[in-house]
Every structure is written in structure tokens, then in C-alpha cells.
């Protein structure tokens, strides 16, 4: 069956590569937009304890909505295609990043921020030089979770015509063709694992040296 799947890929390399590229592009774009939105928003929302608490609770509730439901909800609003799939994936990525950003900033040691204030740092300097570097490991843990969610959920984009590797899976199921299904499923699984490992490495590298557990 694996052999058949490989033969399928080799028979139509263009189609496979297209799907793979769409899958990666969709995931990367969604993650990039989500980071650009959620990190600054998290920083702002962490300024007030009430806003921070509300954000974390709301995001936790939002996280329980199944990926497929979010994608399906896009249909009546934005129709089918790449864009609605992208919007849906952004929405899926936001909560994890938001929760971790708010949580990380709120948990920065008050004494450290107090010392920075007392030494004459402006609020901006404190955010850039103290709070964000100290929050990096936790923020990145959120980005890593979101990245894996997005890569996995991008498979479902196929249901609303978003393309990607999910196309092979839906076609395989529709035609009861296991080899076709594998052409989609195996690369998605590998991509997800690679994303996890890649972001884990990145997270370690970006953690300031003074905060690393074993250095």
C-alpha cells in the first residue's frame, strides 16, 4: 500500500508538491498573522489584572471549539477557498499564543520590574528589555503549541476548499482508496512532528542564556 502511495506521488509529482506547498504556506501565514496579532495584544491585555484574567479565561473557552467547527463556521461568512481557511487557522492559533503571552508577562517577577522602574527605565524600556525577554520561553511554548495545532488543522482546510495535503485524504476517503489517503496522511504526520521538533529547538535557542536550566 505504501508502495502504491509512493507510485501515486511519483506519477503526479506536481500535484503533490502543490498540495504540500499550499499546506505549508497556509500554516505559515496563519501562524505569522496570529503571532503578529496575539503577542502585542497579549502585552497590552496583561497591563490590567482584570483584562488579563478575562483574556485567559476567554481564550481557554475559545480553545475548546473544535477545529472543524471553526472551519465550518467560515463557510457562511467567507465562502470557500484559501482565504477562509487562512482566517479559520488564524483564529485557531490565537488562543494558545494569547494565553501564554498574557500568562508570561503577568508572571514576570514583580521585584525585577520594580527594580527596573526604580532604576529609571521607562515603561517601554521595561517591556522591551525586561518583560519580553523574560517572557520569551513561555510565549514560545504557546507559539509551538499553536504551530502544531495549525499544521494539523490545515489538513481540514480541504473541507472548505482551502487545498493542502487534506485534499488527498478527503479524496482517499471518498474513493475508499487507502493509498491515496496515505499520500496525504503520512506527510501531514511528518510535517507535524517536524514542526514540533523545529519549534522546540527554536524555543531553546531563543531563551536568554541566564534563564536556561542547564547552561
Amino acid at each position, binding site marked *: 500500500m505504501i508502495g502504491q502511495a509512493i507510485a501515486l506521488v511519483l506519477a503526479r509529482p506536481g500535484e503533490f508538491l502543490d498540495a504540500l506547498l499550499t499546506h505549508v504556506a497556509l500554516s505559515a501565514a496563519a501562524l505569522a498573522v496570529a503571532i503578529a496579532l496575539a503577542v502585542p495584544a497579549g502585552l497590552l491585555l496583561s497591563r490590567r489584572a482584570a483584562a488579563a484574567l478575562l483574556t485567559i479565561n476567554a481564550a481557554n473557552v475559545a480553545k475548546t471549539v473544535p477545529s472543524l467547527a471553526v472551519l465550518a463556521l467560515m463557510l457562511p461568512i467567507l465562502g470557500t477557498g484559501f482565504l477562509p481557511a487562512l482566517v479559520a487557522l488564524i483564529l485557531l492559533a490565537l488562543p494558545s499564543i494569547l494565553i501564554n503571552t498574557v500568562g508570561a508577562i503577568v508572571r514576570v517577577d514583580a*521585584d*525585577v520590574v520594580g527594580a527596573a522602574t*526604580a*532604576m529609571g*527605565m521607562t515603561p517601554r524600556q521595561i517591556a522591551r528589555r525586561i518583560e519580553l525577554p523574560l517572557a520569551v520561553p513561555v510565549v514560545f511554548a504557546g507559539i509551538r503549541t499553536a504551530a502544531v495545532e495549525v499544521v494539523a488543522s490545515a489538513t481540514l482546510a480541504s473541507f472548505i476548499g482551502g487545498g493542502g495535503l487534506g485534499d488527498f485524504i478527503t479524496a482517499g476517503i471518498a474513493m475508499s482508496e487507502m493509498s491515496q489517503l496515505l499520500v496525504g496522511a503520512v506527510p501531514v504526520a511528518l510535517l507535524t512532528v517536524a514542526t514540533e521538533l523545529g519549534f522546540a529547538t527554536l524555543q531553546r535557542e531563543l531563551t536568554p542564556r*541566564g534563564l536556561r536550566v542547564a547552561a
Partner: protein
Amino acid sequence: MIRLEAVTKRYDGTGAAAVDALSLEVPEATTTALIGPSGSGKTTTLRLINRLVEPSAGRIEVAGRDVMTTDPVALRRSIGYVIQQGGLFPHMTVAENIATVPRLLGWDDARIAARIDEMLGLVGLDPADYRARYPRALSGGQRQRVGVARALAGEPPVLLMDEPFGAVDPIGRERLQNELLAILRRVRKTVVIVTHDVDEALKLGDRIAVLDGGRLVQHGTPAEILLRPANALVAGFVGGDRILKALALVPVAALRRSDGPAPPDRLQIAPEANLREALARMIETGSHELAIAGGGRIILGDVLAKARTSG
């Protein structure tokens, strides 16, 4: 100089004032220890000086300028601040921590690098060994030293310390206190130090301000506080052995007598030892007098008279 004039701080929604019509003067290049039970307003008083807390009423001057009309960021860059455990930035090296205020002040790199090494030397840490370390790799006492180095790096005329040695073990604390005294003899700073430790206040303070319920109960030299406590609270605070503590403030050399025959060498005491130590030696040896190394003697009667009369 630091001057507080009838300063009151009332936090929103609370009835009692945290600091109540407090007036206090800290002369140039002297150290004042703020002491009192918890909730007495000593930390609030300290934080009013660098505007971490803003007064509800009254006036606070640092170097002749009203802090409320001074830009808080510029004000704080000219005031060193040390807190318990140092409050070091964990993601920055020792050197980067010390460089914080010089960098904010826009010094050039060469001057900053020289200042880092100078400050590490001042607090007794070898620059080559400690510059590149992270706070995580320091002991409590070393963190506290780096905290002091960081506070002094920007050449502030004023230094505020909030229970700086509270988290250090007793032996380490005494060593840090001695080092701080040595540092303050070399660099002239106007210092306010908050502590709940009476012995620390007696040791470090040129003057001591005793606070209770946000009010100044007594303000004076260590000897004045010990020998003439203003009320029962102060007397209780300084402890039942306050006379002995007062004797500990006076060196043996102050009561040197050159008359009469010198006692034998086995009854000798150093001139820089204090009267409490001299008294302990007399009790221990059963002698009414001791020989002072380098000449002269000290007699029990003089020590007792000193204890009864002044400080």
C-alpha cells in the same frame, strides 16, 4: 540632602495614612536608618523619595529639588536603589546588570566597561570571574553585592536600600554590613536604609528614625535612641540590653587613662575594641581594670559612669 516636609501618603480606599505628616531630614553624605514594626510606613517612606509612591500631601526634596516637579525617570536614574535579594535581572549577566543605569544615561562603551570593573572591585568581586556570570550562578551574598554595585554604577549622590541584607544568613549579613560601611567611607553618599533589624540600624545609621503607624516617633543618633528612648515602644524596640548596645558604640580609646600603674599584659584590650567588649572582659577576668594596647588603661568605674550619663 533629602528633606521630607509634613509628608502624608494615604492609599485609595484605606482610612489610616501609611505615612502621616512625616518630616525628616537626611544630611548630605550621612546614613539614616528607618526602623519600626511592620506596617509602620518605613518602606512607603523610602519609595516616596524616588517617586515609586507619590505623596497625598507634603513636600519631598532631593538635592534641593521638589521630586514632584522632577521627571520621575531622570530622578530615579540619579538615585541608587537596592532591594532584598538584589532584584537582579535574571536574563542579564552581572556586567549587563551593573551597566543598566550607565547605559540609560548614555555613557560610551569604554566608560561603561571600566565602571563595571570598578564597581565589582568595590564590592569585592573579581571582575574577570564574575563579569560574565548570570545571577542564577551567584550565592545570595554575591547577588546582594552585585545589587549594591548596580545601584552605585551610575554615580548617584543618593542611595536607597530596602531591607538589603534581609535574605542573607547572619554571618554573611554582618560581613556585608561591614563592607557597606567600608564602601560608604570611600564614596560619599546620602543613604536611607530600611531595616527591621535594630542592630543593623545601630551599626549602619549615623542617625536612626523610628516610625510607628506612619508617624516619626523618634529621630536621633544611635546613642540618643539607646540612652533616651522617646517612649515605651522605642525602648521595647531597642531591647532591654540597650545600655549594653550603647556601650558597644564607644571605642575603648575614648576612656583611656594614662594615670596609675598599667595592669599586666594578660589584661590587655585593643584600643578599637568597644566598651561592651571591655566590660565583658572585666566580668570574665574579675578585674576592675584593663590595659589598653599601645599604652594607658581603662577602669570599670569610668565604663559604668559612661553607661549612666551619655552615649
